[in-house]
């Protein structure tokens, strides 16, 4: 099976489900991107509209756009958290995502236990978790901290652990939202090398970021979103880290 993503006129429109509540009505708009239409209890958000693009093995797509342009929504749709309400989206390949460093990590549990839990959430078998454990620990450079509670980790340590777990079992399609730009330079270099290796193994990377330098360094294609619509989808000049 060839790894690929094919989006044809994909759209996501949902009704703003204001929670049923006895409180007085809140007139402020919800903190959301996209275009809001309608009034009263019949308001809808057009988060994505007519989004079309195709990616194949080896592609590294940079998702660019202002806050609320639909980058995270598109990533979540590619991951399967939200389903398109129009158009068609076909994805071939095992997808993993890094949206939030702390997601799936339990503060009281040790790094080791968190690797097990994160692996289970990702759908790995016990054997896969055991086999991947030494490599994850080594790549994350946590050393003896691996048996300390996750809550004692710095932001950088948490990011290293999250990245190691997400990339050790070599996902065929890796989705990342912004945070990879955080952390120290050494970690960024190491992460960049692993992403290159990943795409070298015929994978796809989709990275949403405001960091133009990072996008230019990591990606070979760029998709610019504006108010949920594609403004530009084009190749980028490749600049390896």
């Amino acid at each position, binding site marked *: 099976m060839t790894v690929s993503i094919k989006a044809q006129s994909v759209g996501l429109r949902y009704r703003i*489900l204001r929670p049923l509540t006895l409180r007085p009505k809140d007139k402020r708009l919800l903190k959301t991107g996209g275009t809001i239409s309608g009034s009263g209890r019949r308001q809808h958000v057009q988060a994505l509209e007519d989004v079309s693009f195709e990616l194949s093995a080896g592609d590294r797509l940079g998702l660019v756009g202002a806050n609320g342009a639909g980058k995270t929504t598109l990533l979540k749709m590619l991951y399967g958290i939200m*389903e398109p309400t129009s158009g068609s989206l076909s994805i071939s390949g095992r997808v993993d995502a890094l949206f939030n460093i*702390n997601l799936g990590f339990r503060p009281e*549990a040790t790094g080791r236990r968190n690797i097990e839990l994160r692996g289970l959430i990702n759908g790995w078998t016990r054997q896969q978790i055991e086999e991947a454990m030494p490599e994850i620990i080594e790549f994350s450079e946590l050393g003896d901290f691996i048996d300390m509670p996750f809550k004692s980790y710095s932001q950088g340590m948490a990011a290293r652990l999250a990245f190691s777990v997400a990339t050790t079992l070599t996902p065929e399609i890796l989705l990342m939202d912004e945070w990879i730009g955080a952390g120290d330079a050494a970690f960024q270099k190491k992460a960049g090398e692993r992403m290159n290796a990943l795409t070298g193994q015929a994978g796809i990377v989709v990275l949403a970021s405001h960091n133009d330098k990072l996008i230019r360094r990591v990606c070979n294609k760029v998709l610019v979103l504006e108010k949920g619509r594609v403004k530009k989808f084009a190749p980028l000049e490749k600049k390896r880290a």
Partner: protein
Amino acid sequence: MRMTLQEVFKGALAEIASGFRRYPVWVALARESIGDQHRRTTLGPLWLVLNYFLFAGAFVVVFGHRNEIENFPAYVATGLYVWLLMSETINMAVPLFRREANYIKGTTLPLFVYVMRLAMQTVIRGAYSGAGWIVLMLFLVQPSLEQWLMAFAGLAVIVLALPAVITIFALLGAFFPDFEFITGNLVRVGMFLTPIFWIHGNDGGLRQMLYEYNPFTHFLAIVRQPIISGELPVMELVLCLGISAFAWVLAFFLLGALRKKVVFVV
């Protein structure tokens, strides 16, 4: 976009099947949650046993004075055990999806995984306090093997209904935030309206209505009656199975219809 009944049915079936397949996730997360709750304590989950003893003891002392109910301590201790199991489940189910919002918005885990995780957590907590209940019963009643089997059959009916009840309350809690406070109050009042420490005297009136039309009465009876009187309450058992079946049907269709919308409201 309106969903057809077939889409609702297919969606619910896929959701529940996928949730069951991911059992290593909910078993691990449930164990982790129980561990987190007691991680820094000296007694650990044994606090659950101690809490139950304290609660049951207080009820027996306060309400047992001149009480004419046969074997009142066992009556109260069993009723309280079942009530705590059910009421804690409802209280924890209502905010379930909002509590798991980060996971729901960041992973593709089926919603039923969170439901089963809470059900598993309830079973583990129930097993700890259940150990206290068993000790009390051995001390107060010395039930026969037959009585134990009948009581455990009643508990099994309750456990089978848990995922359905959690699904219904979690969905209501996700779409109707005030529901958390409504159920919180109803559960507090429900403790006194449910015959945990009282019994009606066939004299009609509101007290008898509360006894007979309160579904919790029957769930208490299917565990308590075998222990207290040694009889299998067939009518109550059939009624509880019917309520459980209804809860499953309701949960099934609610899940099928609302599962894709939850991510937008939590």
